[in-house]
């Protein structure tokens, strides 16, 4: 049925990734915010991880679109 689910997954994680990476970057000096997470900037790291996941999904979607004769 007509949609490639990799595209919405890719898009959503790219948006999440950008959002949290930027948020993590601007809050990197906020020690109170990152006290619960043992001083680790989890927003930045999760953001980067999700960005990678999102981009890989989109790349896979692009690849399967190219290989399929339309």
């Amino acid at each position: 049925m007509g949609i490639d689910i990799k595209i919405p997954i890719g898009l959503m994680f790219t948006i999440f990734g950008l959002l949290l990476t930027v948020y993590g970057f601007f809050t990197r000096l906020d020690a109170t915010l990152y006290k619960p997470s043992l001083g680790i900037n989890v927003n930045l790291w999760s953001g980067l991880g999700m960005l990678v996941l999102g981009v890989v999904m989109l790349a896979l979607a692009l690849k399967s679109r190219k290989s399929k004769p339309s």
Partner: protein
Amino acid sequence: MNSGFALSWIDYSVMLIYFAFVLGIGWALKRYMKDANAFLEAGRSMPAWVAGLAFISTNLGALEVMGMTGSGVKYGMLTTHFYWVGAIPAMVFLALFMMPFYYGSKARSVPEYLKLRYDEKTRGLNAILFAVMTILASGISMYALAILMEKVLGWNFHLSLILSAAIVLAYTYLGGLSSAIYNEVLQFFIIVVGLLPIVILSLKDVGGWHGLQQSLAPIVSSKGFAPDTWTTTWKYTGAAKSNPLGVEWYGIFAGLGFVLSFGYWCTNFLIVQRAMSAKSTTAARNTPLIGAIPKMFIPFLIIVPGIVALVLMNTPGKGFSLPLNAAGQPIYDYTIIMLLRQYLPAGVLGLGITALLASFMSGMAGNVSAFNTVWTYDIYQSYIRPTTKDKASDDKHYLFVGRMATIFGVLVSIAAAYLASLFGNIMDFLQTIFSMINAPLFAVIFLGMFWKRATGHAAFTGLLAGFFIALLHHGLTFPEGANTMVKGGWIAHLHAYPVEMAQNFWTAIFACSTSAVVTIVLSFMTAQKKSDNELKGLVYSLTPKFNEEAVPWYSRSTTLAIIVLTLVSILTILFW
């Protein structure tokens, strides 16, 4: 009750983006919903990996996530038995031996398989029980989610209940089963990504796996168990008293590994429906196998943080405690959200809450999409309005009925959620009833697939007999310290089990064996009304063997099954 746990704008942004995508997927699929087949069966067009992830995602509902983390606190790594000896072997069995019949018979649902294999009354019994139980189950998980959000986040109970139901209704109404399945794949990724930070942070907090073992030792010893009981799986199952599950290895093996898991994974239409939506027989067989690979690692995502929580609860400096219920007992089901609260700052916190919402939605959409199919095909089309000669108008009509069933299902779920909020015990009660229905069903379907002599009258009686024996066993036994009739012992106190889990296992074992014995004996006493030709494609001995030679070796079901079983054996040995 827990002040200072307010979410910030960034958390709400993450949640809103998620809602937008979930609804967007439903919207994008709307134009494909031209007939009942597209709406209720996803047009049998799903690739195996999509169906496979949906297969485990629909089971990864809110109650599963909350319950398994809670079980991590109560039973430690022994909880992994639900996965490694429970779900995985059952999924492999379903894939290799049962999917060819479910898929190849062209049945559109599990009850319809029973109709083709046995007779109308067996189908009717199963369809009606399934429809009722599925909708109640969906209402209960809705209640669990709304009460969690109210108690921990301070959200309005009614608002979160109605809002979450409205979103699920919107996307299943628009895009039917396809929408439920595609969203389950998306939700699967969110659940993993959203919960991963607490796994890493909580383990780091206690000094890794090794640190966890060391900190657990004194806590576990004070409970009267060997110091490494919480971080091992089979080591202390020699005697029921030496492990917190209260069951010996053979009880785990037969009750959980065989009866409960096979009963759930191989006969529950909610699950089987995902594999039935696959695009070919090979894809349908591969669906549970592809799902099994991530499934076996889910314990690290949801059970391990629960084990860490036990250490945190017993370390005063950590400031971690679980909310208490009216009786002053900790509410173990809230472990996961208390961990989110413990470790996550604004930002990833929103992602973690979104993961819980996603798990709730995947579970509920699964229930709703299974309900509308059984209602439309097995109840409405069979007993209320059979098909006519005009196929085009039939297609339109059943699509309409399917859509209405979706709305009806969600409304009854909401009613069930309010019912659950009135009677606290209804959740335990229904879970008990559900396991009583599933175990006999497995015996009947199994015999139907592998023994051509099994007859309709025998199967019908077998189902009922299994159910009544389960009720009887439940009425005569009780878990030690039980203070309510819902837990058992409402006829007499014949036998006491150390814990409730043990009672559940044995109820299922008795139910399944009774059902099997009754079905076999009565099959010999009654005549087989179905000819061999009618049973072709439904019974093992009368169906041509499925030939995999055309499929490349790496995507054959047997290859995948060997990989799955090898991996799960390695995990079992590592955590013995």
